[in-house]
């Protein structure tokens, strides 16, 4: 609970963050960019969870624990995705998602 900052403000912020992430995810063709956008969305959710926990159910811990999960998941996902992206870059010389279609046909 932070004094002077209402939950609406936080939610507005996270919503903005989420849609910025979504927009980035849908429009970016660079794999790294897409990954960053994905992270933005995930983090906005994590903030949401913590905010709901603190403002609505202050005596409980579930929200915080979920956000911890999300952080761990995001870390694992980033590691995996970066590994894939590196391999893709090695094979195709580019990180553009439009170039990566060898598996499609």
């Amino acid at each position, binding site marked *: 609970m932070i004094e002077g900052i209402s939950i609406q403000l936080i939610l507005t912020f996270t919503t903005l963050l989420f849609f910025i992430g979504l927009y980035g995810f*849908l429009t970016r063709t660079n794999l790294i960019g897409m990954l960053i956008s994905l992270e933005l969305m995930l983090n906005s959710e994590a903030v949401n969870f913590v905010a709901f926990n603190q403002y609505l159910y202050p005596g409980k811990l579930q929200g915080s624990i979920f956000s911890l999960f999300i952080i761990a998941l995001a870390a694992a996902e980033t590691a995996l995705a970066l590994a894939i992206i590196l391999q893709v870059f090695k094979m195709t010389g580019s990180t553009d998602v439009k170039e990566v279609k060898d598996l499609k046909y």
Partner: protein
Amino acid sequence: MSDYSWVIWIPVLPLASFLLLGLFNRYFRKEPIAAYIGMLSLGIAWVLSLYTAYQYYFVSGIQNGKYIPYLPFRWEWLQFSDHLSIELGTLIDPVSVMMLVVVTTISFMVQIYSRGYMHGDSGFARFYAYLSLFSFSMLSLVLANNLFQIYIFWELVGVSSFLLIGYYFEKPSAIAASKKAFIVTRFADFFFLTGILLIGYFAGTFDIETLNSMQTLKWIGAHPGPVFMGLSAVTWALILIFIGGAGKSAMFPLHIWLPDAMEGPTPVSALIHAATMVVAGVFLVARLFPLYYFTGDGFTLRIVAVVGAFSALFAAVIALTQEDIKRVLAYSTMSQIGYMMMALGVSGYEGHEGMGYMAGMFHLFTHAMFKALLFLAAGIIIHAVHSNYMKDMGGLKKYLPVTHWMFLFAALAISGIPPFAGFYSKDEILHAAFKYNTIIWFTGFFVAGLTAFYMFRLFFRIFYNGERTYEHPPKENSKFMLFPVVFLGILTISAGWIFTPFSLYVSPTREPFSYEVHYFSPLVLGSVLVALTGIGLAYLMYYKPTDYPSRVARAFGKLYFWAKNKFYVDEFYLFVTKKIIFDKIARPFAWFDRHVVDGMMNAIGNTTLWISEKIKFIQSGRMQEYGMYFIYGVVFLVMVYYFFNF
């Protein structure tokens, strides 16, 4: 002993010979063995037939003044329903016994003859196998006791004829002729089959004895079936059956295959296309004669008479102009079969009324002998001069003396000069026709003159007509070929008066009766005179090389030209088959199949492909696009929810 159980061996022996020669063809490369197997089987069959005839006509056939039918063998081969079935059997009655004698005699003689004629041919065993197959089928046909049995062997004689015409299978004309013969007769057989089906449905049986029995005839008279174009169903059936017979017997307009069939080896022409198979149509009408006579007041018989008379005239006119000796004989065969048909057509039923029937059968009998003789003699001539055409012949009397005399006898016989065989039968036909209808009689009478003329045209041009020198002097050097000719020659001289009155043997009611030949009645004198006139004209024109023939031809102008081109019947058929059936029916059908029916299927396939081609971009495989669609969807749903407030 008169159970006639031996009769079954008459067709079975040639069958055995066929199977032996056909299946083990390669073991019979040596000529004489194949020939002797064929001759032996047919020889035994011939003796058995003669014995059967003796037994039947003179010993045990007549009971209570009437020939009774025997059925020594029957086998229900295929049952269709409770009443209808195909039986294979051997029906012994006056007609079938007579046919047995004719078929085995000619077959046996031709088998002997072929030993000489086919000497040195590479397919010798094959030839004998086909001949045996033919004899088997023909003998089974004449012994048939069931309409369907006739049909079965009808097809089989057709196929043996096809195989034998196409025997020289490397010759394009022989191939074409064999195809033509088979397809034309097959076309007629389709009508025959339809007729059989109709009879089966409306008379309820295929059994010949039952069909001809008074009981069935009365039943049919009372229940003639639905009427179509003024004729009852059974009458139609009989007309259709007659069309089948006309196809096999080369009646106008289904005769076109017969002249071409002369492409086969000459013994085949003698056996199949002169003496036996081509008279199958006559035999068929004779077989069902009571049915023909009593159904629809004998309407069909009138058709038979008219078709017969017209074919006789038509063929005789064409025969006047042909140059190929075998073709002249072929048209002459057609003409003579026309006589037989005419005789059946004009015949009555009981007692002396049945003279026409008797005369038709008698003519069948004598014609088989002298026409086979003519063909076999023609074979000797062709063998000797290596040509079918009269222009390559002339003055052959010196080289082929025996053939000359035999040919003369046969020509006299066919012209109807007493005491040769043809006189006795032909005159009775004219008698019967005279009683029936003057126009028909006059046609027959006129044809008799034409017959005498073209036969002697042939005779003089082959054997006289000046002197000629030949590169290889023609000679009669094969005993195998001379023996049958002489044997048939003797029959040609004697068969007529020996077997007169023929009605003692064959009559419509199977009741023998007797008649006298009035040698000096005006009718007889008239027909002999017209024949002599024909011979005389032929003598004037062809005994020595003259320019009369070309002058006469010019005088007739168009008519001569048309006759020489066989009245363009062939061209008409070619037009119908090639231009109409092939081009106007079969080709559009094939096109329709490729493009419309198949096109429809392809169109279904192609449409599917096209749609998939158009919509496949939706599924691009890009997460981002899917995400977009997802978002659009969500936004859309939210808006729907918001505005309509479910």
